[in-house]
């Protein structure tokens, strides 16, 4: 199971980096979302995979009765997903605003805050 996940993470990262090298801001963001999911999968796999044994405490007991899956990475991944959700929601709105304000999604054309020197020359 772990090798499979490792290959999946590798493939996702490769695809994400390909997307992130694009000048188009939207494709960059899609790459970022993909790579963040690759990172989440890394954490998930790092906690070792224990299929079929959810970390649930049965009624009346104080601790799980047998060996169960590691719950901590799941909690970490959940937190990371939530945070990622907030960040990417913001980033997408920002991309929309950028398109409205600057008229382009090409990052090389976004020079409003850092104007090229030659444009200022008379």
């Amino acid at each position, binding site marked *: 199971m772990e090798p499979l996940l490792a290959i999946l993470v590798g493939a996702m990262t490769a695809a994400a980096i390909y997307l992130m090298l694009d000048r188009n*801001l939207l494709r960059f963001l899609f790459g*970022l979302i993909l790579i963040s999911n690759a990172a989440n999968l890394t954490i998930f796999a790092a906690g070792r995979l224990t299929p079929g044994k959810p970390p649930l405490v049965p009624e009346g007991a104080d601790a799980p009765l047998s060996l169960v899956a590691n719950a901590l990475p799941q909690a970490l991944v959940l937190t990371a997903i939530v945070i990622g959700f907030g*960040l990417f929601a913001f*980033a997408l709105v920002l991309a929309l605003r950028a398109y409205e*304000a600057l008229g382009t999604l090409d990052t090389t054309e*976004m020079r*409003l*805050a850092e104007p090229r020197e030659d444009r200022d020359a008379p």
Partner: protein
Amino acid sequence: MSWILALPLLIPFVTAIAVFLLSNSPKMSARVSLAGSLAGLVAALFLFAEVASTGVVAGQMGGWPAPFGITLVADMLSAIMVVITAITAVAVALYALGEIGAEQSRLGYHALFQVLIGGVSGAFLTGDLFNLYVWFEVMLISSFGLLILGGRPEQIDGAVKYVALNLVSTILFLSGIGLLYGETGTLNMADLSRVVAEHPDQGMMTLIALLFMIAFGVKSAVFPLFFWLPASYHTPGFAVSAVFAGLLTKVGVYSLIRAFTLIFVSQPEVTHTILLWVAGFTMVTGVLGAAAQSEFRRILSFHIVSQIGYMVLGLALFTPLALVGSVFYLVHHIIVKANLFLISGISQRMTGSGELYRIGGLYAAAPLLAALFLIPAFSLAGFPPLSGFWAKYVLVKASLDADAWIIAGVALLVGLLTIYSMTKIWAEAFWKDDPSGRIPKAPQDGPPLWPCYAAVVFLAVLTICVGLVPGPFLAFAETAATQLLSSDAYINAVLGAQE
């Protein structure tokens, strides 16, 4: 014990809620924000006194023992950083009285600002890598909001670069956390300090360390990862960029210091050598970048980069004296840099522009502002007896002691070039006459200017105090450096606190 640690976090969040519910009344929310910042300062000073008298303080939230629970821990470095954060918060909240209008207040400036301060304090106090990530994100989300507040096109443009590069760093940080957890099974920093040192595969640990180095490197804007900073810091309002300039990159530097003194110290010949090169290049590229700029805040932004190099230099040399220099530099830099950004704000209010070639005549029109500019500017350049002199003196002496002649030379040369940039601002904005012949004057409408001056004077007085009486501050920095180099106190405070 844990309450004294939790208060510097709780106060900003409670203030944020109060301010948000008051956001329809700009005057009230600005005042509540200032009051909350003052309360935060008091709490921070209490924490500092506790740490100074009893050593490292650690506490577990929710009563769960370390390394399982949420650990808050304050050693001398954390305590110093929390106090300086609170001081910056007070200064900027005061300044905001004179800058933030009804519209920005309604959009939530004060609430976002308080959340940002809470996030920064949390990052300084947490004892857990994953919580550090969470606090980074709290900081990041609120800084995004502050950055685009008002929504001018330049702001959006700057924010795109800021958001994109910081998100990349976030993901690297998260991957590093995943790999480290997979290898060691813990994320508590005190626990990691033991486990990483004993780990059989040191090569893997160094690899993970490099992942963290890049992630924190983006946050602290070191060479070659700093491009987002000068692209965005000059675009938002002044009360926003001052707090960014003072605090945000320093959280990155703090994380670097924490990670590479407490956790990843087993192969310093790899990690700290890289840091040394990074420090040298950061100093030089930053200061050269500043020399090429002609906008007030862009010059200052590039100087942040160059100054980050000094702080990383102290960490890279990894001797007691060098770490003292780093800690002292952090403190000095936050005060001075926030102050310079605030001054650039007053200057823009009076002249109407930040482009140095279009403005002038400030010396004649506002001699007080000119004098107030000289204090942090000279301090930044390292003139005795101001705070920057002592910071640079300690660092250069530490590099000479470590026989690092070249880097000492670089540090001195960069100091010289810093003077060039400060002279440029002085000559263009203050000394020469305005090219269009108008006399700088603050517009009559809009919020009053006195809170801005009060904030600047407050920080300038601090700079002078640190400069004239460096003894106690150096002593605190020395305690911090000692605690950083022998991490036993830190580990015992966290893991021994479980009984």
